[in-house]
């Protein structure tokens, strides 16, 4: 772990094929539960896999299925959607909308040839820092087993290790 190895140019411009593969996971999380749960994982100094990039939305109900397809298009190997537990939605019912939407969306994914196993769904409350860390580690391990989604995608500039 030398500081010289952190060359930003190397990180952004390198050829993906030259580097060993590692999962790229995009997480769409709600502001009130899972984002706060991830904050708690931080304040508790819980270490987890660096393979996730969080995109914050007010509520899982805001997540347009297009966002998920775009994330795969952008070279994600898996997408994680996480919000408040059922019944605890900050906005009363947004997570129920999200849950029903994914029931239908999984079928569309299969139709388009994306393995539905690459879409992860979870509930993480603001109090569940440990659960968030465990979740990220579990998802990363699972995706590592499953392998890359589309290794030839030019949008994949580098692995997120």
């Amino acid at each position: 772990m030398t500081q010289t190895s952190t060359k930003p140019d190397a990180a952004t411009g390198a050829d993906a094929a030259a580097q060993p593969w590692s999962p790229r996971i995009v997480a769409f999380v709600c502001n009130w539960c899972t984002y706060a749960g991830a904050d708690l994982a931080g304040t508790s100094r819980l270490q987890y896999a660096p393979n996730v990039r969080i995109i914050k939305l007010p509520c899982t109900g805001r997540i347009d299925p297009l966002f998920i397809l775009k994330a795969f298009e952008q070279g994600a190997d898996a997408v994680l959607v996480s919000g408040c537990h059922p019944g605890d939605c900050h906005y009363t019912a947004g997570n129920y909308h999200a849950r029903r939407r994914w029931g239908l969306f999984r079928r569309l994914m299969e139709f388009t040839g994306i393995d539905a196993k690459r879409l992860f769904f979870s509930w993480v409350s603001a109090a569940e820092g440990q659960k968030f860390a465990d979740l990220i580690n579990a998802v990363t391990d699972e995706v590592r087993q499953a392998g890359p989604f589309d290794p030839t995608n030019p949008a994949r500039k580098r692995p997120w290790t």
Partner: protein
Amino acid sequence: MARVGVFICHCGENIGRTVDCAAVAKAAEAFPGVVKSVDYKYMCSDPGQQMIKDAIRDERLTGVVVGACSPRMHEPTFRRAAFEAGLNPYLLEMANLREHCSWVHEDRPVATEKAIDLMRVMVEKVKKNAELRPIRVPVEPTALVIGGGIAGIQAALDIAGGGKKVILVERSPSLGGHMARLSETFPTLDCSQCILTPRMVEAANHPNITLMTYSEVTKVDGFIGNFEVTVRQKARYVDPEKCTGCGACFEKCPAKKIPSEFDAALGNRTAIYRPFPQAVPNKPVIDAEHCIMLTKGKCGICAKVCPTGAIKYDDKDREVIVKVGAIVVATGFELWDHSAYGEYGAGRLEDVINGFQFERLASASGPTTGEIRRPSDGRIAESVVFIQCCGSRDPKRGVPYCSKICCMYTAKHAILYRHKVHHGRAVVFYMDVRAGGKGYDEFVRRAIETEGAEYIRGRVSRIYRRKDGRLVVKGADTLAGRPVEIVADMVVLADAIVPQPGASRLAQMLGVSYDEYGFYSEAHPKLRPVETAKAGVFLAGACQAPKDIPESVAQASAAAAKVLGLFSQPELEREPIVAKVNEVTCVHCRACIQACPYGAIEDKEIKDSKGNLIRTVACVNEGECQGCGTCVAVCRSGSIDLDGFTDEEVLAEIAALE
């Protein structure tokens, strides 16, 4: 052309230890649109904030990204700084380099790479961000209180005492609610009417309170600060202006055999009546269903005896629309109907009564003037069996929840009974005694230890009437493990507390959510117990869950405090994270209207200059929208977007992932 400033915070060593902040700042310099990128030890400190302010002015920045702690921590700090430097605060975003990066990863190169990614994502977002202005909503500083029981009265008095106008709507002809019917109250045994009626009078006479009794809410429109409520004032057939409350009318009324609602059908009333002598307002109404004049067209005695000519047989229901800024719902409870319990006589045994009926028997102003006489033949009850949990904690036939107040009022009933019939036997069947509250357990102990009530832990399996008219109560004593049989003159059932009939209909009108039993749901069970999910609508009393008097009063005062807080400013200011409809592309499929958890989306008619309807579109009410974005994701034509989290902004974030 975007001119973005990037500011990387070391947070002392919190970020700097694992993330090479200088390298991140250097990498960010190369992002398209970034004109300034620096790192600093403590960005949230005064010099750090000054650095941002100076850069906004000197570099004419159109967007700022601060890579620091969680936005939940310091976003307001940095947005205020941006505002002070003349930049719209919604053009500043934070990337979470501490909680989501430096604190959760150990490997410095890996954390640094991730930090650069997080910065790139927010830089791309901020380039798409729009200037947003806080939404201002005017507030009509008048409150509506629905329900004139003790909770409603307390809320109305507190709001009125705070100097704001209140409209108090009550369905029955008088204020008072259930509390007016009680004999004495636990655990102090003070007389219910003695403590309640002065408050009723105070509410009626308060200059800030407009009383609307014998009235019901029929329609609620609008949103926080600006509700329009339709109230139906039922025909009283008595002109309240002329009536002096002398009582000549109901003394002479020939229709005398109508079961009194107030006395829980143990006494009778006339067709023109006031519910009880201390009624507020103390003016009678005519019950149109039973009045001989109104049903058969002849009688007219009350009009003849009325000295002021106040009787109006041609009176009609009236609808009044009131404008209010906040609503307190205090509709209270009702008792569960125990006729579902066949083993307790299915409601057919006259001497098996409920708690309210016992209250009226024990009340000095009740049908027996306070003597405990059994309803069937009027004999003094020598032996009374009280059965707790009648319907409560019975998921199969009743309700699964505990009704909370029955243990206490049953102990009170047993004590009152023993005070009135010294030689009488009071037997209480209970499942558990739940007496949590100040002085409550002591009160139950007193009933058992000094007042001589016999407590038997167990259920009653059957009640039947003997030939001599007395009741036989068969049950089990589960502590002794043997069956018991008690001969009683009267059985008092502690029926479960259920919401008022029609509670769910009112909830739908108000846009308030309710549970499977019809109790209204609070916005948060711990931290927002008096608010509802509908902004501007508050809860007080047993309409939310079974509650005793002190709890109802406390919640009513809390609701009043919330209302006064809301009314303390002429305008509401809120975060402009709200949905917006593109009226040009909206096809009015109404999917968003159905999805919105707040009922914040309504129809909007677009008309030409002559007033002809061109088409109808969806329209988001900014006052009600809470900004969840559920409507955006359900919109089939992509015609709704959420300010602060637009499709363009989120897609830019995704596209920034390298």
